[in-house]
């Protein structure tokens, strides 16, 4: 048999369910594959595990592993679709997928490119606010949420009793990023999150602000935007300035 065919057959036996019965050796490889992927997911999804409990978490991980053969060379990258998988499995419990997303985003931020805080004095050098774009933290991940998953995560990570689950009418934003080698996260109200989304999509600061104020004509957000900007600088959500004029 050609080498590639031998390997396809071998891998097929590893991925097969139930385990092959041909030899103890093949069962060792069959078991090791699942144990390794499940171990990686247990490491990444510690707070989902704490929230679901051993039985449900292990059962969901087993189901995920059977449906998602690994395709990356890095084991650390395995399981990044688990939040989406859980969203389908538990459509009435959005906090589960949101906890999973937060676990995964914190893990990805941990290994993302590092960046220094931007000195606020840099803003005083800006001569043309119409063209300025902010460079956001390279570890930034964000998504909309509709539960109090961040509060649940904090409690679970400290082995404290989590608060009651809450679902909100209006979605808010959840941002994860990294400063000084430490991953961190924060919930953002809808307006602030909309602005961050626009900046993360590459929109210029002036244009993003204009859009936000046009969408909220009954409120004067000027002072609020200034306050957000100061906070983003202080907490490292913004790490650079791009004053190059573009036509994009």
């Amino acid at each position, binding site marked *: *048999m*050609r*080498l*590639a065919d*031998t*390997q*396809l057959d*071998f*891998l097929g036996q*590893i*991925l097969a369910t139930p385990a092959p019965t041909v*030899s*103890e*050796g*093949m069962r*060792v*490889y069959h078991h*090791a*594959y699942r144990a*390794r*992927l499940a171990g*990686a997911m247990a490491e990444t999804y510690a707070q989902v595990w704490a929230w679901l409990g051993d039985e449900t978490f292990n059962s969901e991980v087993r189901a995920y592993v059977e449906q998602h*053969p*690994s*395709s*990356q*060379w*890095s*084991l*650390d990258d*395995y399981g990044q679709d688990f939040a989406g998988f859980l969203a389908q499995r538990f459509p009435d419990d959005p906090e589960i997928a949101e906890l999973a997303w937060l676990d995964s985003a914190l893990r990805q931020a*941990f*290994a*993302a*490119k*590092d960046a220094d805080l931007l000195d606020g004095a840099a803003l005083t050098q800006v001569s043309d606010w119409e063209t300025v774009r902010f460079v956001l933290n*390279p*570890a930034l991940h964000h998504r909309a949420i509709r539960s109090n998953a961040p509060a649940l995560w904090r409690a679970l990570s400290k082995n404290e009793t989590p608060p009651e689950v809450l679902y909100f009418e209006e979605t808010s934003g959840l941002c994860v990023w*990294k400063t000084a*080698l430490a991953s961190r996260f924060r919930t953002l109200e809808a307006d602030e999150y909309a602005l961050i989304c626009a900046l993360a999509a590459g929109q210029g600061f002036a244009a993003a602000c204009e859009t936000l104020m046009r969408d909220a004509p009954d409120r004067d957000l000027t002072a609020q935007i200034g306050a957000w900007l100061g906070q983003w600088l202080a907490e490292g959500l913004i790490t650079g300035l791009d004053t190059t004029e573009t036509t994009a």
Partner: protein
Amino acid sequence: MPPSLAPFSGLGLGLRPPHYEAILAAPQPVDFFEIISENFMIDGGRPLHVLDRVRADYPVAMHGVSMSLGSPDGPGPDYLRRLHALMTRVDPLWVSDHLCWTGVNGHNSHDLLPLPLNEEAMATVCRHIDRVQTFLQRPLLIENPSTYVTFAEDTYTEWGFLTELCRRTGCYLLLDINNVFVSAHNHGFSAQTYLNGLPLERVRQVHLAGHSEGETLLIDTHDAPVPDGVWALWAEVAPRLSHAAVMIERDDEIPPLPELLSELDTARRLTSPVVYV
């Protein structure tokens, strides 16, 4: 052929996260640390920060688990680019990986899977070793794996296969004594015959590790202290490997650092036996 690789005969440990704090806090009685390359082939974060600090004080060997030298495609360009970047950052003693394949057709097992030991596999592995050595401008160290099956297509013994790999590619060897012990038990060959059949002068590094017991097979789990049988095998061959770097390899159930340092003391005694004059 790649350039030759000078020996380094120190005693070392794997650099693992549970020990970061202790290693950074005080000098440790080790001559080098070995890293799992893939754990540091990342864009940033604390692991690279720790690695830079460790590298400032100790030589570092890079040990990979994902090169998949035995698969038809071999390592991909992203993998090699990241490996090269890490190598440039670390300036390691050497770069090693395994005689194995990890996946095929875009699927990855994240395991060190066994190869049929025949001419087609030989040509495949040689082709990829040549490619990687040319890309890195360094010779590779190839480690013998633990295996749990053999193939009807085998035409080489594993030690014969490794010997021929060294001859054809100029690569060196990372000899895992536990893996020899485990595979000898699993496949019924003599560990001594295996070791006697290897070009020991090509060995640059030795792994000492533990294993666990399956139904009838031994399984390379790296989650236990080095057992007596592995120590005994090492004691037999150590006098012929005084030129090699030796380390205790533990990847799971990682004990506090002093426990591993104590195991390393055992390796030190066996590696440099007391000479009575």
